[in-house]
């Protein structure tokens, strides 16, 4: 216990700094992923053929092991002198987030009760009015579930990004492994877990705020 206390006393500022790095990397990646994934998911509801293709590609992306994807990023981004560090990690995280976000947006809207959609069209709503007033609000719980999956998954994957020098809490774990420092490994892991739990709880709160009580049931 004493060793623990001493470790934390010495390393607390660094752990905090790495946690912030980690959160920033994941947040930026998720914001960009949302900007791509949600409009794409909405668009796909109008194009069945493209939907199948895009969802297939997104599924395949998710099956690539993260360490392999980071590896592939290095030569590609070396072209613009960004082979290691923030950029390739960020791009990989955006790619990984696409499947849950696109798929949940797409399924959420596709699964809107057809009678509700029929009523909306029959009452004279234009396509964008129908999307904004009826379809997206009613698909919100499903869309938010996808976002939460993506965030929690990315917090985990971002740990691996430490191997390509992207910083974050992965640094504690990788250094801990190479130095055989059990305190470092465990404190890194716990910090990642806490970050994931906090992020998920915040998103759950946002979800409840933005989806009416009726839909949350």
């Amino acid at each position: 216990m004493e060793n623990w206390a001493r470790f934390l006393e010495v390393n607390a500022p660094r752990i905090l700094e790495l946690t912030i790095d980690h959160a920033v990397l994941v947040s930026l990646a998720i914001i960009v992923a949302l900007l791509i994934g949600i409009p794409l998911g909405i668009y796909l509801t109008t194009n069945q053929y493209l939907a199948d293709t895009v969802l297939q590609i997104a599924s395949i992306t998710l099956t690539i092991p993260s360490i392999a994807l980071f590896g592939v990023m290095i030569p590609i981004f070396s072209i613009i002198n960004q082979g290691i560090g923030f950029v390739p990690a960020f791009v990989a995280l955006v790619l990984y987030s696409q499947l849950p976000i696109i798929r949940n947006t797409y399924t959420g809207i596709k699964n809107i009760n057809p009678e509700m959609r029929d009523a909306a069209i029959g009452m004279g709503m234009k396509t964008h009015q129908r999307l904004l007033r009826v379809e997206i609000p009613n698909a919100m719980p499903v869309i938010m579930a996808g976002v939460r999956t993506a965030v929690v998954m990315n917090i985990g994957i971002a740990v691996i990004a430490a191997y390509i020098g992207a910083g974050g809490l992965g640094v504690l774990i990788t250094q801990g492994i190479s130095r055989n420092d059990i305190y470092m490994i465990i404190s890194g892991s716990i910090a990642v877990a806490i970050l994931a739990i906090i992020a998920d709880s915040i998103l759950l709160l946002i979800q409840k705020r933005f989806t009416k009580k009726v839909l949350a049931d």
Partner: protein
Amino acid sequence: MISFKNVTKRYGEEITAIDDVDFTVEEGKIVVLLGPSGCGKTTLLRMVNRLESISEGEIIINGENSKDLDAIELRRKIGYVIQSNGLFPNMTIEENVMLVPDLLGWSKKDKRERFKYLMKLSGLDADDYGKRYPHELSGGQQQRIGVVRALAADPPVMLMDEPFGALDPIIREKIQDEFLQIQREVKKTILFVSHDIDEAIKMADKIVLLRDGKIMQFDTPSKMLAHPKNEFVSQFFGKDRAIKGLSLHTVANLQEIIGLGPVDETIQDTKTINVHQDLRNTLSMLLNQEADQVIVKDDNGENIGTITIDLVQKYLHFEIKGKISASQEG
């Protein structure tokens, strides 16, 4: 007024869903599209607000060809009610009801006033229900809201696709009555889809009976029941169509044509009915032998005579025979 002019719908070369349909819904009247499932009644209804395309022919709504109008504008001018009420669960009752006025850009004040008026029509309290969400209402209340929502922007024309089909029989009858009451006030031109014969007889000024996309008969309910045009029509209404037809007539109608029997003061075991009671229920009461004498009372509660099975039979005879001879002459 809605006029269907030789309206046809084909799916590809083979299937003709709607075949040369031609009829008119007069201003302020209810026409019920009736028929077995798959006869094309819903398709026909949905062609009016262009949810379904028209292959041939045209639909004229209040003098304008539906094809020439912008689909969005057209739909906003037509009230639309569907079976499962189609309320949006993410909106409050007030937001649901005021959706079309909102799309049309009405002012807040106008919307508020209209909402209060509509809720009065529906018999639900505006302040109490306005802020609630659809799932907090019973099925019958939701359907009432579905109906007044269609009336929101005061459209001249309404389309109703089995609006009361999902309700249990007791509530359904109540809401049908309420709706007829509302219709007496708002006098909309209504096209109504139903598969329920009793509902059609009750609601319709005229019935369009469809089979495989063709009109089998277009007539008033009483004519259709008394003089089915062909085998399909008579079979569709069933062997008891004479009894069904009785619900279209009241004791008052009978009194007008053949008069009531005298009241026998010596009989103790009596029951009374209102003069506006329909003959179907009256006959059922007589058949139940609930009393030795059934006395008819007018709205002031005065005894105006008695009614017997014989009188009902005589009236029925007169109605059917009378009309047969009239139609033969014509």
